[in-house]
Each structure stands twice: as C-alpha cells, then as structure tokens.
C-alpha cells in the first residue's frame, strides 16, 4: 500500500509522460439529446421578488442605490452565500483512478449535493450539510481514456452510411460540410446508424463529464459547473495548477477539448488558450490557481514563467483570467506564512512549507512568492510600477480531493486519496513520500476547504459572475456567513439588522475597489460574521491591511476589530487576549460557552494616507474546536501522543480584498 502511495503521488506530481491520445470528440457519437438548459435564469431563491432581472457582471454598485418607499424594491443584491467546492478529482483523474479511486464524476456530484455514497474503501459516507454547488475538475492531462475509438475503425466502416460520410469528410471542405449537416440531421431525427451509438465508439471522457454536469445542474437548487484542472508542474513539481471553470453549458464546452500540459506548462499559453476559447465559442471561462505553498517560489513570482520581467500586458492577462486564488485546501493553506507575517499569531496554521509538490526542498526567498497576502501587497507595487495589478484576486477554497469525496468536515474527513480514507493508522503513515526528508505525514493533511459565493441566485451564470467580480470568501470548512463592505461613510448605526442594506448602499462589497477618497475622509469598513450553526462560536474578526510604504516597499498590519466575550477580553500590549479553549481532546467535543455566535462592527482605518495604495481583507476566526486527528483518535480509540500533531484547530474564513488606489 505504501508503494502505491508513492507511485500515485508521483503521478499527481508529474502527470507527465508521453502524449496521451485523447479520444476524438467523435462526431458520430451518440450525443445525448437530453434537454440542455441554456444560461439558466436567475432563480429568485433567497432573493426578493422585487427584481429578478439579471445583474450585469462586475457591477455590484448597482445593487442598491436608490432607497424608495418600499424597502424591498431594488433589493436585488446577493442575500445569501452559496457554498461549494471548485476543486474535485474523481476516478477519472489519472492519478486518482491509478490510486484506486472508484468514484467517478457522477458519484462525486451526487455526494456533493448531499446523497449518501459508498467510498472507495467501502465505507458509507454522506456530507453533514449538502453543498450548493460543485465543479468537478479532473486533470485534463490523459483525460481521453477510451482511446480505441479510431476514425478508420473497420467495424465502423462496415456501415455504408458512416463509410460514405467518412469519404465526404475527406473529400474537401464543401463535401465535409455537407456530411456534417447530414450527420446533425440524422442525430436530431434519431436516425444515426446503430453502430454510431455503440458504446465502444461512444464519447470522449470530456463529453461524458459534461453530460454528467448537465444532468445534475438544477438551477436554483444545485449548480454543477463544467470544469477541469490544468496541471502544470514546471521544473518537476513546482505547482502552477489552475482549475478552469465554465460559465456555459455542454454545447459550448464540448466544442474544444481541455488544454493540457502536453501542449504547454506555461500559464501564459493557458491564458492564450482561454482567449481563443472565448473567441471560438462565445462563452466565458475563468481560472483559479492553487497551492502557491507548493510552487517553490513560482506562483506569485515577480518575473514571467520564462524569467523575463513582468509587463503590463502580462499583468492585465493574469488579472483578467484569474480573478480568484484557492487559498486553502487539503494540502495546506496559502494565505499567510509566519516568516512573512511575524506579528500574525494565526499564520502558523496548516502549513505545508517544506517543499514543492514532489517535496523538492525550498530555498531561502521562495516562500515570499507563494502566499496570497504577500502577493496582494506585491500587486500594489507592480501596479505602481507598471500601471496594472496582476495579483488582484479574490479568495477561494477547495478540497482537491482525489477520491471524489468533498468531505472537508473535521468529523467527516475522507482525505485526499483512497488510501487515506478513515483508518486508525492514517495519521502516522506517509501521505506523500518522495524519499528521505521529502515526506509529508498523514496528520498534516488539512480538512479544508470551501468557497462561499455571494451570488444573486444559485445558477451557473450567477455564481460565475460573482466569482468574476470576486464577491467570494474562502473557508477552512465551516459555513460561516461573512459580509465585508468598504466605503467612506459607514457608522456604528450601520451595524444594523441587515448590514447588506447599508453595505451596498454606502459602499462596495468584498472583491471591489473603493472609489476616490473624499477630502479628509478615511475608508470605513462594515464587517459581520455569523457562525456555522454546527460549528464553533466566533473568536474574532480581523482586518488585514497591506500598503506601500514611503520607500515603495509593501507593508502589512493586522487589526482585531471585533471579538466575542467582549466583557472579559482586553487588549494587552497591543494583542487581544485569547478566547480560551473548551476542547476535550479525549472525547473530541467542545462547548460553545466562549466566543459569540455573531459579530458585527464598523472599523475605520486609523492610519490612512490617501496618497498610498492599499488593500484590505477580513479574516474570521472560530474558537478552538477538535481537529480531524482528534475525531480519529476518539473514534478509533488510538493514542496520538506525537506532540507535533495538532489535535485542535481554529477554523477560519478569509474574504476577498477591497482595494484602494489614489486617483
């Protein structure tokens, strides 16, 4: 079994090898004629009926500006966040299938929407709370698996119609077009030759994947995005992976096969491909990079892939195609690192900081180019120099599961590979082993995370548009609700029954830009959080500010802006006293007798300089609760005595930032 883990981890890392032969999107394939719903309308679920018109992408400023008599009129802003996972591998990913995963995209999607399934290791499993949406993102490399579908296959050619079509295809463009028309008509009229729907010649895996997404996409109830992962491991394991998320449906997605790293490992080529894709199909796609922490200094490098200086065009392209960054998942968090943020007492959290994906050790300086916070700060500097900020991204969270199970709950953690599904020994085994000193232990796996999207409704288009305008936040797993608005006129009175009303009326939401600062005014922020009803109370909300110092160097400062148990906690030497800890590790339980279920505050930047670029985001911390290792110990009745193994965790959320630029 150990051998297997090594082998598959290498596959995950390398995913290289010879060019695979993806199955052609065989035109003769029995494409499903099932109803394909196009660009689902806004559903109104969770929103007011006052306006069900679609909100134009990237313009939250129109959400609520004109208070009239009716308090509900015009209230068409997002009223609830939709929780989902933008990063799921199933048995159809070559490394997942190779490691024995048996759950394909259909089982994975069913699990995400709340159905019970049987895991690869034979254990029944169900999510504590269903997700609102999911994107199955199997690796594009070697996706075409049923590759024996040969165009000139003799069995196919035995059918006279197919033979004739084939000859027409080869007979020049006019004839070929005629053949296509005939074929389309035959398919529409269900008059395809029987052999054409023979499963042995059926479909590419991509077409099958998109069919499954289509089947389970139920606007208003559950969104199944079409997606894939482009898995670039430059230089042998420097993680530059990106998940590609489609706004559109199968009809557009099927027109072009996913981009693979056999074509290129350079993200710039991916962006070119995305540009081409949009031009060809008229659809829309975006990319979400992940695991900066495993990129050995390359995820947020201050040079291009080939080592050249950044240009404005490069910065524009990155910002355009990559509106979000996955800051937490099962392979650790990439939000902040203690060596970069020495004053941040909570940065040393779920760190995977020793090497890249193949655990090639890091060299000094690499970590500074791997974490979101540092990149947000560096983005300000690049913007000052080039006039464009490449790192203007919002926050996402995903699982990166490789067994089809988006089970990121601490008490329901099914881990990353089938071999690490619940078993008494999984904590002490090697999760990855690339040789001496290049090992990641089982206990280091992180039970995380999800993306919360502030969309006007639960449809592909609405969620995607919200991702594009970065109105999202990442969580380590719990479904806490977090609002974060910036403006110049928020006052304590705005911390009302519905912060969103004041939030959208007087400011901009997470992911947006502050307008120009009125003379003499500093930015104010309205921030609020509500606990996950099944998880811990809230410890505190922090606002993290990054800016450019007088010397042009990026700076950061953390502010505790509101906290639970207000009457008993104090700021001592500039630090808020800890919330405490009620966890009983032996039984893996805790009590919500500390912290608060809900926190809301208005905070004004005390050090604002209108001449200086700045970026602000919020981080919400829960009180300590049992980590998955504690649930394992309690369930399997094992002793975990290694002091390195954390048995409690402080779950958290990070919001997308709000930016300020001098005019």
């Amino acid at each position: 079994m150990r051998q297997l883990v090594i082998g598959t981890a290498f596959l995950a890392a390398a995913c290289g090898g010879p060019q695979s032969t993806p199955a052609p999107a065989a035109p003769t394939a029995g494409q499903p004629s099932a109803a394909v719903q196009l660009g689902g309308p806004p559903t109104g679920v969770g929103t007011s009926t006052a306006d069900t018109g679609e909100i134009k992408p990237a313009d939250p400023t129109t959400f609520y500006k004109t208070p009239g008599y009716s308090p509900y009129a015009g209230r068409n802003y997002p009223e609830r966040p939709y929780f989902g996972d933008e990063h799921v591998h199933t048995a159809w990913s070559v490394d997942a299938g190779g490691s024995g995963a048996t759950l394909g995209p259909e089982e994975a999607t069913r699990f995400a929407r709340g159905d019970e399934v049987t895991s690869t290791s034979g254990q029944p499993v169900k999510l504590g709370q269903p997700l609102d949406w999911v994107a199955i993102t199997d690796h594009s490399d070697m996706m075409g698996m049923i590759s024996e579908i040969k165009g000139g296959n003799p069995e196919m050619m035995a059918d006279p119609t197919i033979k004739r079509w084939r000859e027409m295809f080869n007979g020049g463009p006019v004839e070929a077009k005629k053949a296509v028309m005939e074929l389309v008509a035959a398919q529409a009229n269900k008059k395809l030759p029987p052999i054409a729907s023979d499963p042995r010649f059926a479909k590419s895996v991509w077409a099958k994947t998109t069919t499954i997404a289509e089947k389970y996409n139920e606007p208003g109830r559950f969104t199944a995005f079409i997606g894939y992962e482009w898995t670039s491991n430059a230089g042998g394991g420097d993680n530059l992976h990106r998940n590609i998320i489609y706004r559109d449906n199968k009809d557009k997605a099927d027109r072009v096969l996913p981009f693979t790293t056999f074509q290129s490992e350079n993200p710039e080529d991916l962006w070119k491909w995305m540009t081409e894709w949009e031009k060809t199909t008229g659809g829309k796609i975006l990319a979400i990079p992940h695991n900066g922490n495993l990129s050995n200094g390359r995820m947020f490098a201050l040079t291009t892939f080939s080592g050249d200086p950044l240009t404005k065009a490069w910065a524009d392209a990155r910002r355009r195609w990559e509106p979000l960054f996955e800051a937490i998942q099962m392979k650790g968090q990439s939000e902040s690192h203690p060596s970069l943020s020495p004053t941040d007492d909570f940065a040393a959290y779920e760190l995977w900081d020793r090497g890249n994906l193949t655990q090639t050790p890091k060299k000094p300086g690499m970590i500074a180019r791997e974490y979101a916070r540092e990149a947000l700060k560096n983005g300000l500097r690049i913007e000052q120099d080039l006039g464009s900020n490449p790192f203007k991204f919002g926050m996402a969270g995903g699982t990166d599961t490789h067994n089809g199970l988006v089970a990121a709950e601490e008490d329901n953690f099914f881990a990353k590979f089938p071999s690490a599904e619940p078993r008494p020994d999984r904590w002490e085994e090697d999760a990855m082993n690339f040789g001496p000193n290049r090992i990641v232990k089982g206990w280091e796996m992180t039970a995380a995370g999800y993306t919360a999207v502030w969309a006007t409704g639960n449809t592909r288009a609405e969620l995607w548009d919200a991702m594009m305008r970065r109105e999202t936040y990442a969580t380590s797993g719990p479904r806490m609700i977090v609002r974060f608005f910036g403006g110049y006129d928020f006052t304590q009175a705005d911390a009302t029954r519905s912060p969103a009303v004041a939030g959208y009326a007087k400011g901009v939401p997470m992911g947006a830009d502050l307008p120009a600062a009125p003379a003499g005014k500093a930015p104010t922020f309205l921030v609020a959080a509500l606990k996950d009803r099944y998880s811990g109370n809230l410890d505190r909300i922090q606002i993290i500010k990054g800016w450019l110092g007088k010397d042009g160097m990026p700076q950061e400062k953390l502010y505790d802006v509101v906290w639970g148990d207000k009457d008993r906690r104090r700021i001592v030497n500039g630090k808020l006293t800890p919330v405490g800890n009620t966890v009983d590790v032996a039984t893996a339980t805790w009590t919500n007798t500390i912290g608060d279920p809900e926190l809301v505050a208005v905070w004004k930047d005390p050090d604002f300089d209108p001449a200086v670029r700045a970026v602000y985001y919020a981080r919400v911390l829960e009180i300590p609760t049992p980590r998955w290792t504690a649930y394992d110990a309690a369930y399997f009745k094992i002793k975990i005595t290694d002091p390195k193994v954390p048995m409690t965790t402080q779950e958290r959320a990070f919001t997308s930032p709000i930016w300020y630029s001098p005019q």
Partner: protein
Amino acid sequence: MRKLLGEPMLHFLLIGLALFGAYRWVSPRASGGGRIVITQGILDDLVTQHVAARGREPSTSELHHLIESYVRDEILYREGVRLGLERDDLVVKRRVRQKIEMIAEEDAATRAPTEADLSAYLLANQARFARPAVFTFEQVFIGESQPGPAVVHVVTITGEALRRGVDPEGLGKPTLLPHRMTTTPADLVARDFGPVFAAALEQAPVGEWVGPIDSSFGAHYVRVSDRTPAAAPQLAAVRDQVVREWENERRQRARNDAYTKMRGEYQVSIEATRATEGR
C-alpha cells in the same frame, strides 16, 4: 534484515533488476521487430485530436511531431508489453478496469426509460421525489432563545410592535440571516435556519406575525405570506430527476452485474494463509 526483506520497495528493485537482465538477454532477438503503419485512419485521428484541443489544423511541423510521438508511444508501448511490463502494474490494471466498467455502464445507457419504467420508479421512491412545501416569509431575529425575564420582555415587546404594524426593519437584533425568503422550498429554508424552523413554518398561520419560533441560531418572529403545502410528486413535474435517478441506478447495477457475470466464469482459489486480528 527481516523487515528489509519484507519491504515492497526492495521487491520492486529486485524485479526491476531481473527484468533489466532479462531484457539484455532477450533483446537482440526479441526487439527491432514489427512494422508500424500510419494508416489514413490513424493520421486523421491524430489530426482530429489536434483540432479538438487547439481549435485549428496542425501545421506541417506539428503534424510531423504528432506522427513522431505516436510512433514513439507505439514502439515503447509494444516493447513494454513484450516484456510483460503491463502485467503487474496497478495503474495499468485500474485504467483497464475503468474502461471495461465504463463500457458496461454505457451498455446500460443505450436503453431509454419508458413511461412505465418511470412511473414504476416514481411509485417505488415516492419520498425521494416528494415536493417540499414552498414558503415566502419574513423573519425578525430576537436572539438567543434561553428563557429569562429579559428575553421574555423583548419577545413580548417585539411581538406587539409587529402586530401593530411597525416596520420590521427597525426591530430585532442584527443578523446575517436572510430577513426574507421568497418561494423557497422547505429543505433550502432548513439549510439556512435548521430543520426545526422549517418544520414550524409548515404550521404557522399565513399573513400573521407569530413567535417566538426557534432556529439553530435563536428565536425569531415570523410572518409567512405565502405557502404551498408539500405534495406527492407528479411525474410531469419531476420527470428529469426521475430519469436521472433511474439511469443512475441502472448504470450502477449494470456495472455490478457485468462483474458478477464475469466473476462467475472464474474460479478463484486462495492458496495462502495469513493471521489477522480484529474484525
């Protein structure tokens, strides 16, 4: 030493070494064989794949590259198979297993369900397709539901104010919960407020402020303005879901049936023993 001998890595290395030796031994005769023909069909396939991936025809050099890598794949693959390298390879095995399972599943997918299939399936799975109650309601959050004189006071004051027609906007405690939900199914209400709250909405009188009603967060005043009661499913309304579930079940059964059938054609004898503990 004993531990070392049990180490799979060592086995792997030894096997590798043996294979390498065997290869050296047999290769002068066994290798170099065979003919690789690039038929029009194969070439067209390579081009089709290129077009599907890149959205355009390959250039001359790209075409050469496609052919070259096809040939390289083919030669190395054939040489590997000649040595039996595919045999004890778990990854290859699983990949092939996946293919055959997919084919079994696809076989099942070729038959579309009839009306009778769907009606029978729906009848057998009423609960799964039941249409939940649908609500439109507003709520005012009062706070934690622990009993106490202060809470009772707030509850009373809020209730009276609401019944007098005071704007709910100004009442209650701040909350991030939606203060209004429109034509929302009970299970989605439960996702936000908890199942107890959703169940209470089924009983609440329509058009009146009532409370306190408990959610997972505390107590609320609630006014349901519209309610469609839960109903037994009609095929027309849930057709897509029924088709999907029917197909899914059939697909999984097909996969298992195919295996069971094949298993029946094999004789498995376990000629080894191993002491184990526990269940």
